[in-house]
């Protein structure tokens, strides 16, 4: 018995279509109203500034206030929801000025010509060329354009608890052997040498994977060769992950063996709370963790050092990332105002103060040396440009690298791990090359 299935007399199909068409048109109309329109009213240009760090909204509010006081003809609206950027592009209504963490995803925007060329702006000359190289190494639009200027460089290494180091008479290690010896000392004293937070897989790829890879091979060169090979990559090619990363993997497992018990069920927030309480001597995290650690324990004395992965001191490098890079979107109707704002942001008083306050490094050539004791241990590496961008940041987001690293740390099967990376890389190259 099907009661509800009778009575489908042919509904006037044409009438129905007409109605649907009208409804559709009515729904489209209000949407088309939000295209890119010049936003000047009463001689005041409104800029939309999207920055990628929700935790520094207050700082930029102050910066914007000062800027507006000097430039009464410009009004700046701050947007810290980075998730709006791609939808903005799709709607053809992106913000005028953008800061983004510069890595694979942003480099992809550069390749697609989303950003304007900033090469002719005078401030571009004040940037440390080594740091600009961190951006241009990802590829430049039209081969020579400067699509982004670094604003803040974050350097990551091993965060250590100075009190625990001093209490056990351990000095900052400068070679892999010294590092292992330090870990053994802590272990013998009943202190977890490293606090692991494996439940958040990004902490594994950011920490042990990037540090060990960056310390044992030339990451940038590896990826440029790998990319050049394209879809023709296989595990036995000289450019493959298998051929290059194999020697480094045992060191990752060695690092994992120095983590506290139960690292697999701890996440990043747990790690910050525990490390702040002095439950481990070292923590493979970047400067973003520092403020959290201090918030959890005001009295904690922290320092950082680049992880030595070989016994040659000259090889010791810091992992850096361009935490904020400034760009102007290519199609902005407010180019002149946007350039004035970018100029202002890169004035030493703005950019240096920001980086000083946020445990980061300024991109300006003549920036003062970093005095913050929490990161000063990385200062020499940054100054001498002994740094690399994390291997993990080179992966397209469609490769779930973090999960693969986590799988490797749990299962300890290095061959499977690297073969999977080679496979994934080849598949992405295959489908993006066409």
């Amino acid at each position, binding site marked *: *018995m*099907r*009661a*509800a*299935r*009778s*009575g*489908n*007399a042919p*509904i006037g199909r044409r009438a*129905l279509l007409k*109605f*649907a068409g009208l*409804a*559709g048109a009515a*729904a489209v109309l209000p949407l088309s109203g939000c295209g890119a329109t010049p936003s000047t009213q009463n001689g005041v240009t409104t800029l939309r500034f999207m920055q990628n760090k929700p935790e520094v909204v207050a700082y930029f509010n102050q910066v914007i206030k000062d800027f507006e006081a000097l430039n009464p003809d410009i009004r700046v609206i701050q947007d810290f929801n980075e998730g709006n950027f*791609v939808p903005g*592009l*799709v709607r053809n209504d992106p913000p005028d000025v953008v800061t983004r963490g510069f890595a694979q*995803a942003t480099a*992809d*925007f550069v390749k*697609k*010509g*989303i950003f304007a060329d900033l090469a002719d702006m005078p401030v571009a000359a004040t940037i440390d060329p080594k740091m600009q190289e961190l951006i241009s190494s990802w590829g430049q639009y039209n081969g020579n354009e400067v699509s982004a200027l670094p604003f803040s460089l974050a350097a990551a290494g091993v965060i250590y608890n100075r009190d625990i180091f001093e209490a056990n008479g351990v000095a900052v290690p400068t070679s892999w052997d010294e590092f292992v010896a330090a870990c053994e000392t802590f272990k013998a004293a009943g202190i977890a040498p490293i606090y692991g937070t*494996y*439940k958040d*897989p990004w902490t594994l790829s950011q920490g042990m994977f990037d540090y060990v890879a960056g310390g044992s091979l030339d990451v940038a060169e590896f990826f440029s060769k790998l990319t050049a090979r394209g879809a023709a990559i296989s595990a036995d090619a000289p450019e493959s992950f298998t051929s290059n990363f194999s020697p480094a993997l045992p060191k990752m497992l060695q690092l994992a063996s120095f983590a506290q018990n*139960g690292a*697999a*069920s*701890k*996440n990043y927030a747990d790690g910050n709370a525990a490390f702040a309480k002095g439950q481990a001597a070292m923590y493979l995290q970047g400067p973003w963790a520092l403020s959290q650690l201090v918030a959890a324990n005001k009295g904690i004395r922290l320092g950082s050092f680049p992880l030595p992965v070989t016994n040659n001191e000259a090889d010791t490098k810091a992992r850096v990332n361009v935490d904020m890079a400034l760009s102007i979107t290519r199609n902005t109707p407010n180019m002149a105002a946007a350039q004035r704002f970018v100029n202002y942001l890169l004035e030493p008083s703005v950019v240096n103060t920001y980086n000083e306050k946020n445990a980061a490094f300024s991109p300006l050539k003549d920036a003062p040396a970093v005095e913050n004791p929490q990161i000063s241990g990385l200062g020499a590496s940054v100054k001498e440009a002994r740094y690399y961008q994390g291997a993990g940041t080179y992966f*397209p*987001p*469609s490769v*779930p690298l973090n*999960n*693969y690293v*986590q*799988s490797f740390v*749990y*299962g300890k099967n290095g061959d499977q791990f690297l073969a999977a990376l080679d*496979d*994934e890389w080849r*598949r*992405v190259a*295959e*489908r*993006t090359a*066409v």
Partner: protein
Amino acid sequence: MTATSRVAQTAPPAGRNLPTSASAKTATLRSRNRTDPTYYWMVVPVLALFAFFITLPALVGVFFSLTNYAGYGDWKFIGLSNYVNIFKDPAVLQSYIFTFVFALATTVVVNVVALAIALGLNAKIKWRTGIRTVFFIPMVLSALIVSFVFNYLFSNTLPVLAERFGVTPLATSILANENLAWLAIVLVTVWQAAPGATIIYLAGLQSVPSEVYEAADLDGAGSFRQFLSLTLPLILGYLVINVILGFKGFLGTYEIIVGLTGGGPGMATQSVAMRIFSGFTGGDYSYQMANAVIYFLITLLISVIQLRLIQRRGVSL
């Protein structure tokens, strides 16, 4: 008349004008073509909204699955190579296997649990209304919040308890175990989904007239025999509905996994929906659109098979 056909009858008769003897002669033709316009006013706006917000975007997605579109910027047609590549991708295959195993297991467990709860709640027990309310609370909680709470329990509370009582296998979080994490997801999904199924079973149980049980009592049938030979056949339609709705829902599982494991540890609990969604953030839009189209076809096929099965059983959804 079975209980299930009674469900079907609660739907209002859709505009068939049963010709009465008086009007039959004069207006057979007209009455057949004439339907109360109210029904169109009910259906057409929804149809238009559905077409505009569901069908149209889906068609756009199908279109882009034939391109190399990243979600923004330039693109060009690449024919079917996205589809070809999907079939060569072991990570995608693994997500399909996981999703189907998960959906099957969860459907079975949800229905067993829900039926048991419904039988209990339908019996004459003390504080029945109060207990029913308690059982339905999981339904009103957001799945994401529930899974975050369970995440905390699995990662912190359970290991501490297990350590204290010496149950070593549970001393590390089962969410960190590649072979066991999916069980935690099944557990939380069951916890969340069982009340909904229970309500449907309760409705079914209440539609069974008490006379049949009295008759069975007189014939000397025990309670298990009564359940097997009376209750189960009489609520079979409800069981079918629960299985179908449940299975379809569990195939699209997403937020509970995000809250519990985020697809990990490793790649162990990546569902198809998660892989598809990763295309939006990963610049892999067209590739995952192809994945979505394939998944759509598979679920469509399953739905058609299930609908045929239902119709043979005489149930109408």
